[in-house]
């Protein structure tokens, strides 16, 4: 059963529509706006950019989404009512924005690599202790989406962890199309690596983690591809693979283009590896930009899950 669909059909959720404000009218922000426009749980109350002539703002306006071109600080200080802010600007800007809204009763989903908020992987909510959303009063309301590599690797790491006694070492290598990596991603490649490694550690329980990112310029562009390799004790490959196919299905509920292309196999004694690819849903971004798709899908899913369990906490 498709959980998103199920949710959309629920009257309760229909009545309480989540007002979403999106900061940043680049690829990520614009894709988010168009994505949520198709999702009955949300009402996009604004896409905020800095240049009125930017392609993202024009596109959003064309689709009837309210746009603001005076920058995020202005929009946050203004009259717009919102329950959730998606920040798709930059790590430094996010810190500024957070200072403006930390007192307000709203949810914050951070898509920048600022690492300010609590790392969240929606696929692990209700599965892994570190990603539990328990308690009616949420102490944190700023959630970080970490990185695309982290979101796409989480299912693989989790399945391998469940299938083994202990993971001693974990490695995530992702390759993405050059055209899907903007200048900010390139400048922040070290942040990408550190944030991904820290997520891998927190899922697998080992401090020994390594992340690798490779850009491939081939035309037509390559799909995003993520390989996880672990050094693990007591791996039961069939158990791990059964868990992995459950995880694949759960991921596909909100990232339809997520596919396991190489299931878990033993490379060497105690060394196990598996690979997933992500084809984008193509809301605003091209289909090869699975890396951007997976992080946006995770952001919307996280917001949806949080409102499902803690709606009251984010009503002003």
């Amino acid at each position, binding site marked *: 059963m498709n959980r998103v669909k199920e949710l959309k059909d629920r009257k309760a959720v229909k009545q309480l529509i989540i007002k979403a404000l999106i900061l940043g009218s680049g690829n990520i922000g614009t894709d988010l706006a168009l994505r949520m426009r198709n999702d009955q749980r949300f009402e996009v109350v604004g896409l905020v950019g800095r240049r009125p002539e930017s392609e993202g703002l024009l596109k959003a306006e064309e689709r009837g989404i309210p746009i603001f071109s005076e920058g995020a600080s202005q929009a946050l200080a203004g009259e717009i009512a919102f329950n959730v802010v998606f920040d798709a600007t930059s790590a430094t800007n996010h810190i500024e924005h957070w200072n403006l809204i930390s007192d307000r009763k709203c949810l914050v989903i951070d898509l920048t690599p600022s690492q300010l908020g609590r790392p969240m992987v929606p696929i692990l909510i209700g599965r892994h202790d570190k990603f539990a959303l328990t308690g009616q009063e949420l102490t944190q309301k700023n959630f970080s989406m970490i990185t695309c590599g982290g979101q796409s690797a989480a299912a693989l790491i989790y399945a391998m962890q469940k299938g083994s006694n202990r993971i001693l070492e974990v490695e995530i290598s992702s*390759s993405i199309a050059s055209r899907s990596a903007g200048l900010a991603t390139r400048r922040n490649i070290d942040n990408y690596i550190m944030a991904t490694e820290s997520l891998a550690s927190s899922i697998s329980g080992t401090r020994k983690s390594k992340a*690798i990112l490779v850009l491939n310029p081939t035309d037509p562009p390559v799909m995003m591809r993520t390989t996880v*390799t672990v050094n693990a004790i007591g791996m039961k490959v069939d158990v791990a693979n059964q868990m992995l196919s459950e995880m694949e299905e759960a991921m596909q509920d909100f990232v339809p283009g997520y596919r396991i292309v190489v299931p878990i196999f033993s490379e060497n004694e105690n060394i196990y590896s598996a690979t997933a690819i992500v084809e984008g849903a193509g809301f605003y971004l091209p289909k090869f930009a699975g890396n951007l798709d997976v992080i946006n899908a995770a952001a919307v899913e996280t917001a949806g899950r949080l409102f499902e369990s803690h709606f009251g906490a984010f009503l002003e």
Partner: protein
Amino acid sequence: MRLPAACLNLILVLFLNKKFYDVTLRDGNHALRHQLTLDFLVKYCRLARKSSSYAVEVGHGNGLGASSYLIGKSRLTDEEMLRAARANLGDKLLGVHAIPGLATIERDLKPAIDLGVDLVRVATHATEASLAETHLEFLVKKNVIAHGVLMMSHMNSVDGLVRQARLMVDFGASAIVLMDSAGNFRPDDVTERVVALRETIGVEVGFHAHNNFGLAIANASSAEKAGATLLDGAAMGLGAGSGNAQLEALVAVSNAGDEDLKMDPFYDLSDLTALECAGSLPKVTSTSLRSGMAGAFSGFAPHVQRLSDELGVPVEVLWNEIGRRRIVAGQESILREIALDLMNL
């Protein structure tokens, strides 16, 4: 003992304006499947300090921070290699290779500099120079010699290479090295690219050959004639695939007729490498020719061989598919998928 080597180095740099960059202990680590031993490293460095090479590069085949399941685990850590090299190289410059995406500033570059690295070559795929921005800017601030490297340079046009090289120069690179990582170039290709860079970028140009077609010395020589002043070589050609330009041969060819030329240290390095790495010396083989023709990264060779043995897919079929799909270095994990796809056809 230190002085003569240092003097000779200075003479080379100032008057001949030509530098031999010794990559034996880095690219050679590919041929050794990253299993370089401390013993060989120390012996090599002690001899290399007497040679007239400009710098000695040390590390995992893919440079700092590259030891991984994906590419190959290194026997020695970066720290072990750099510490030993620094202790045994005397005044000789110690260099490292660093690929953004593998090597980070905090985890890899900072400790390397603290361990006494003099020169860092920040390397990206031939079309992705913008990835080098933060790394190069950091090195410039740290007053470390910073070079930019464009790997797999056959995968970009001449104009494209010039644009990418310019970016790296803007970020602070004081030299640009073109790597023919697939050993795909002919001498004329090298001449055209080196001339284009010499005319436009205003910094030193280097060339790093691979010997897939048996053309490494010819290509490096062409680069020198076209104005490249940084010439990469490895003792006995020890390097990925069918190896690099053989350092001792390159020095001899480049300095033919020079009566003061001190070849002995290079002969010693050659003999040491021939002895210590006897089972791993690169050759031009049907595999290296196939990968060269396909324009595929030489470093894939052991992975391709292993998959072919395991899954029974012929090596030439694998190489052609890797070339067709334009797979780049660092995508080692896709090789298995390609092999599986080919089996299902």
